[in-house]
């Protein structure tokens, strides 16, 4: 049974260092050049409501004094509420720093919110928010006809879309701790639980219909307890929606959602091993001495933490290991301990050695090709936590404590991995990263690229366009920007005409190797412009597969096809854009001759024109197996 006396409103995963917090708070009041970086560091600490409020207010003043240019990257959030939410959102500025955001907020008076939804409010429009948080509470539905109120609520949502152009975050509602019948409340429509259930259904529909992001305040309140959340005195006096001591966690919850919308959620959980993933120290206690499961509370807690880590992986979050052990010793439990839930195959990057953890974490970020700010580091040892925080401030390091019973709770309560959706791509993301990480590992083992590429065992499948793959072909044509020679965009219908027109040569390429299937990675469209001349209209490739000689393989296939159909000359164009400078030399690299400077070039003087004599083609040894349909 898991027990903890951790209160979510204290944000107990943040750094627990009151002395340092006081130092930072005092320094933050000095208003000097370091103010912003001090505030950033302070945001990572557990802090009192007043401290958070004070520094947040200063931060807001600091933003107001910035140059317009610097202020542009600030995220603007407007709040619409039937409550006095000003005091709560005052704490937003500091909270947002720990999520990598610089946020400015505004809100209207509680009695202006409804009207502002139905007709454009000058102050709100003028603020031009990126996000609007709709934070209505149950008082909106007090008195009068519930049906009318519900309709009014719907009208408010419609109004927001009509009058403003911002992403909406919609808060769901909580029933007050006020019973009408007793237990029968749950089954009745007249009670608060009954009414709020109907309202929250409407909120869920807004999210589906309008693409709003849901803010689950109801979930937060059920963790805290409605009795503690609502402060009746403060509502009657000032219409405060909840006790101010919950303002920091309220702000944090909303920050996470915005961070998720902006793709800034964490992507990988880095695990220490000893006393984190299992009880005990593998180097000292050996396989027989470490504690996992086995029916005692310590072992069961560690096992639960493993289960949680595994569930994260299954929803697309990667797992990595960072342990001070020899590699062989660290891997043994993963390989053969009967009670281990986590296996080697679940760990995308496994760093077990005697180097310092910060270096290893940097290697993990590099191995996964993600930023340090996408990592969460879980370690029971406060010295290791302090070391990583100091060396790599962008890495999230929760104050894990040393009781494994709390690990799962702390990491999930902190919301590092917040996500607003779950797609098929998320599901396989872990595998795709695994595959890429393994390739990088292998690459480092080889001295030269040639041997590395050979070792991959790549297979490339060429085929002309077909109906089944038309959507994916169209998607690649429209979203590839960097490795794209002409950046011509076509609709699915246009792609269909290329498929069916005998004067067009079309090519789709799929790549797989011994680590996995990369799917469709390249597309070529070419037109027969005369009996013996083929013009390459489009040539594009996914950036994920650069440097693997795929262009050469495609050239070989194009040449072979050309020969078979009586073509002896290829024409090609490179149209430069802001994003495709990497392919300026693509045709030169394949042996084409630069024919720029002709009459017809006057239309676009920056483009380059190329020709290729089919007879001049020299076949090359390629590290890919070509499978042509």
């Amino acid at each position, binding site marked *: 049974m898991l027990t903890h006396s951790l209160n979510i409103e204290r944000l107990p995963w943040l750094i627990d260092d009151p002395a340092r917090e006081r130092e930072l708070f005092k320094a933050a009041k000095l208003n000097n050049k370091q103010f912003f970086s001090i505030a950033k560091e302070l945001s990572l600490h557990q802090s009192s*409501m007043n401290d958070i409020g004070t520094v947040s*207010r200063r931060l807001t003043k600091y933003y107001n004094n910035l140059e317009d240019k610097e202020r542009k990257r600030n995220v603007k959030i407007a709040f619409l509420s039937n409550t006095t939410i000003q005091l709560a959102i005052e704490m937003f500025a500091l909270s947002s720093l720990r999520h990598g955001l610089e946020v400015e907020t505004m809100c209207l008076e509680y009695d202006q919110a409804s009207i502002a939804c139905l007709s454009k409010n000058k102050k709100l429009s003028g603020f031009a928010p990126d996000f609007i948080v709709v934070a209505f509470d149950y008082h909106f539905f007090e008195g009068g006809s519930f049906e009318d109120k519900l309709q009014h609520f719907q009208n408010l949502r419609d109004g927001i879309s009509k009058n403003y152009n911002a992403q909406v975050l919609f808060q769901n509602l909580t029933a007050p701790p006020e019973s009408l019948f007793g237990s029968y409340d749950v089954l009745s429509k007249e009670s608060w639980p009954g009414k709020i259930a109907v309202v929250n259904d409407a909120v869920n529909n807004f999210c589906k219909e309008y693409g709003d992001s849901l803010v689950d305040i109801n979930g937060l309140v059920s963790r805290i307890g409605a009795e503690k959340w609502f402060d009746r005195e403060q509502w009657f006096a000032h219409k405060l929606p909840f006790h101010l001591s919950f303002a920091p966690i309220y702000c944090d919850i909303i920050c996470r959602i915005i961070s998720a919308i902006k793709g800034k959620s964490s992507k990988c959980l880095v695990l220490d091993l000893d006393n984190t993933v299992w009880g005990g120290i593998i180097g000292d206690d050996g396989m027989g001495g470490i504690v996992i499961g086995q029916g005692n509370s310590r072992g069961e807690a560690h096992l639960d933490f493993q289960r949680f880590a595994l569930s994260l992986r299954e929803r697309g979050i990667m797992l990595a290991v960072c342990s001070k052990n020899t590699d062989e010793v660290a891997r043994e439990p993963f390989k053969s301990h009967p009670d281990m839930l986590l296996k080697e195959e679940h760990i995308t990057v496994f760093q077990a050695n005697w180097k310092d953890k910060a270096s290893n974490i940097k290697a993990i970020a590099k191995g996964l090709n993600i930023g340090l700010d996408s990592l969460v580091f879980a370690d029971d040892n406060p010295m290791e936590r302090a070391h990583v925080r100091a060396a790599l401030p962008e890495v999230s390091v929760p104050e894990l404590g040393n009781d494994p019973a709390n690990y799962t709770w702390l990491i999930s309560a902190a919301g590092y991995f917040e996500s607003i959706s779950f797609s098929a791509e998320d599901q396989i993301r872990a595998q795709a990263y695994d595959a890429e990480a393994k390739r990088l590992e292998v690459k480092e083992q080889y001295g030269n690229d040639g041997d590395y590429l050979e070792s991959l065992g790549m297979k490339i499948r060429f085929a002309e366009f077909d109906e089944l793959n038309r959507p994916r072909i169209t998607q690649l044509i429209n979203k590839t920007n960097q490795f794209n020679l002409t950046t011509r965009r076509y609709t699915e219908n246009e792609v269909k005409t290329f498929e069916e027109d005998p004067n067009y040569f079309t090519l789709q390429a799929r790549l797989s190797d011994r680590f996995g299937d990369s799917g469709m990675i390249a597309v070529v469209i070419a037109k027969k412009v005369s009996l013996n001349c083929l013009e390459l209209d489009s040539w594009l490739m996914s950036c994920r597969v650069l440097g693997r000689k795929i262009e050469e393989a495609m050239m070989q296939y194009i040449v072979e096809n050309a020969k078979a159909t009586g073509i002896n000359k290829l024409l090609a164009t490179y149209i430069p854009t802001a994003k495709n400078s990497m392919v300026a030399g693509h045709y030169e690299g394949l042996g084409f001759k630069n024919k720029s400077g002709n009459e017809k070039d006057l239309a676009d003087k920056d483009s380059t024109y190329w020709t290729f004599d089919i007879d001049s083609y020299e076949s090359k040894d390629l590290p890919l197996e070509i499978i042509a349909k």
Partner: protein
Amino acid sequence: MDNSEILTKLQPVFQEVFDEDDLIVTPQMTADDVDEWDSLSNVRLMISIEVEFGIKVKASEVANLSHVGLLVDLISKKLNQI
């Protein structure tokens, strides 16, 4: 706790809530004397006092406090009730 002790304890609370390090709290002080003392910061002040002294203050009790001296009296009364 006597009134002067309460006043001493109020000092850092006021300083934090109104973000003024050199604020000196006197019994004669009113809202007009402090720059940021508006209705919103008044709420913040009352909540901070509740947390600091471990008391509960009703809106009606605070509504008619014209100067800090009366606030100190109120706190003293509450503390003696505990």
